[in-house]
C-alpha cells in the first residue's frame, strides 16, 4: 500500500508553484537577470550581423528563440539551485509532496517565467529590429506559450539531473540543446510566420509539431521525474 496522500497532485502543484513564484517575487533576482541577459543577447545578434536591418528583421523569430533558449538555461539551473540550499528539496519531498507535483510546479513555473520574458522581449525586438506583427498578438502569444512549454518540460528533468552532477553548467546545455532542436525550429518558424505573414497557411502545422513535442516531453517528464529525484 502506498503512503496516504493528504492532497492531490494538482493541489500540491499549485501550492508548490505559489511557493516558487513567491520566492521569485520577493527577490525578483531571476527575472531581472533573465531580462537583461536576453536583451544583451538580442543586442549582440544585431552587432554580430552588422546594421543590415532587413536581415535582422527577416531573422527576428530565430533570434527571439535563441535569446529565450539561452535565458532558459539560466532560469532552469536557478530553479533547482534554490532547492539545493539548506536541502530544501528534501524538505519539500518529506512534506510529503508527490514528486510528479514537484515536476509540474517547476516546469510550469519555468514556463511562466519564460513567457513573461518573451512578452518583455517582443517590444524590444520591435524597436531593435523593426519587426511588424502581421498576424496579430493572439497567434504570437500561442507560439510563445507552446514554445516555452516545450523548452520547460525536458529542461526541468535535465536541470534536476544536472544540478546534482559535476560540471552542471556544461551538462545542462549539452543534454538540453540537441533535444529541443525540433521545438526551437518549430517555434522560430511559427514566430517568423506570425511576424511576416502566412500566405501558405503553414502556421497550423508548426503548432501541431510543437503540440506533439509538448505532449511527448510533458508525458515523459511526468512519468520519469520521480525516478530522477528519488534517493
Amino acid at each position: 500500500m502506498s503512503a496516504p496522500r493528504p492532497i492531490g497532485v494538482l493541489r500540491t502543484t499549485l501550492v508548490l508553484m505559489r511557493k516558487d513564484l513567491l520566492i521569485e517575487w520577493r527577490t525578483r533576482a531571476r527575472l531581472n537577470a533573465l531580462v537583461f541577459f536576453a536583451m544583451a543577447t538580442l543586442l549582440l545578434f544585431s552587432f554580430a550581423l552588422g546594421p543590415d536591418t532587413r536581415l535582422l528583421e527577416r531573422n527576428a523569430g530565430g533570434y527571439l528563440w535563441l535569446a529565450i533558449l539561452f535565458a532558459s538555461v539560466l532560469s532552469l539551473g536557478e530553479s533547482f539551485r534554490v532547492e539545493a540550499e539548506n536541502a530544501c528539496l528534501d524538505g519539500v519531498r518529506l512534506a510529503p509532496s508527490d514528486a510528479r507535483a514537484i515536476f509540474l510546479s517547476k516546469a510550469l513555473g519555468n514556463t511562466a517565467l519564460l513567457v513573461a520574458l518573451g512578452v518583455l522581449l517582443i517590444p524590444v525586438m520591435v524597436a531593435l529590429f523593426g519587426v511588424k506583427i502581421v498576424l496579430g498578438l493572439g497567434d504570437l502569444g500561442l507560439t510563445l506559450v507552446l514554445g516555452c512549454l516545450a523548452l520547460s518540460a525536458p529542461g526541468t528533468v535535465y536541470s534536476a539531473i544536472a544540478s546534482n552532477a559535476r560540471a552542471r553548467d556544461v551538462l545542462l546545455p549539452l543534454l538540453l540543446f540537441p533535444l529541443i532542436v525540433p521545438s526551437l525550429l518549430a517555434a522560430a518558424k511559427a514566430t517568423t510566420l506570425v511576424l511576416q505573414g502566412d500566405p501558405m497557411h503553414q502556421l497550423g502545422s508548426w503548432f501541431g509539431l510543437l503540440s506533439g513535442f509538448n505532449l511527448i516531453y510533458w508525458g515523459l517528464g511526468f512519468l520519469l521525474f520521480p525516478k530522477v529525484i528519488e534517493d
Partner: protein
Amino acid sequence: MGKLLHRVLPGVAVVLLVAGAYLGLFWAPPDREMGDVQRIMYVHVPAVWMALLALTLNFCCSVTYLFKPSWKTDAMAEASAEVGLLFGTVGVLLGSIWGRPTWGVYWTWDPRITTAAIMLVAYVGYLALRRFVEDPEKRAVWSAVVGIIAAVDVPIVWFSVRWWRSLHQVQSSPKTVDPLMVLPLRVSAFAFLALMIVFLARRYLIALAERNAEVALPEALPSDDPATRGGSGASKVVA
C-alpha cells in the same frame, strides 16, 4: 561462450566484411544513375541500421533498468549507447561522402540528415552525463531517464524519410532492388551485425567490470558530495 564471442564471431565478422566489400565493389553492377558512387550504400546503410538497432537496445535497457535495477542492464545500456554512436557517426560520415558527388554537397538540412545529427549529439550528451556522475547508482538511474528521452528521436530518424519527403530517398525493400544489389547489401549487413555484437559484448564486459570495481570499493571513487556517499557500500542494486 567466451570462445564464441572472442574468437569465432570476430572471425566471422572479418570474413563477412571482406566478402561484402568484394561483392559490393567488384561483383555488383554499378548503378545506372550514380555509377560507382552508389557502392557506398553497401556500408552506409548497414552502419546506420546497426546504429538504430544499438540505440533501440539502449532504450530497452533504460526502461528495464527503471523497473528492475541491475548492473548488467546498466552496463549494456552504456555499451549500446557507445556502439550506437560509433556506428551512427560512421554511417553519417559515409552518407556525407556519398552526398558530395550525388547531391553536390557534403551536408544539407534534409529532415533525415538533421534528425540523425540530433540523434548523434543527443547520445554524446548521454555519454557525457555518464562521465560526469560519480555515484554509480545515480548515474544508472539518470542515464536511464536521459536514454528514454533521447530515444524519442530514434523512430523519428527512421520515419523521417516517409513523413517529410525531401532529398534523402526512402527505405528500399528487396522487391524494389535488383537481386545483384541485394546480395552484397545483405552480406554487408550481417558483417556489420557480427561486428556490432562483438563490440557490444566487449564493451559490456568492460562496463560490467568497471561497475563491479566501483561497487566493491566505493571509497576509492572521487566524490562530489561527501555527505551522501557515506553509506553507498550498501547498494540497492543487485548485480
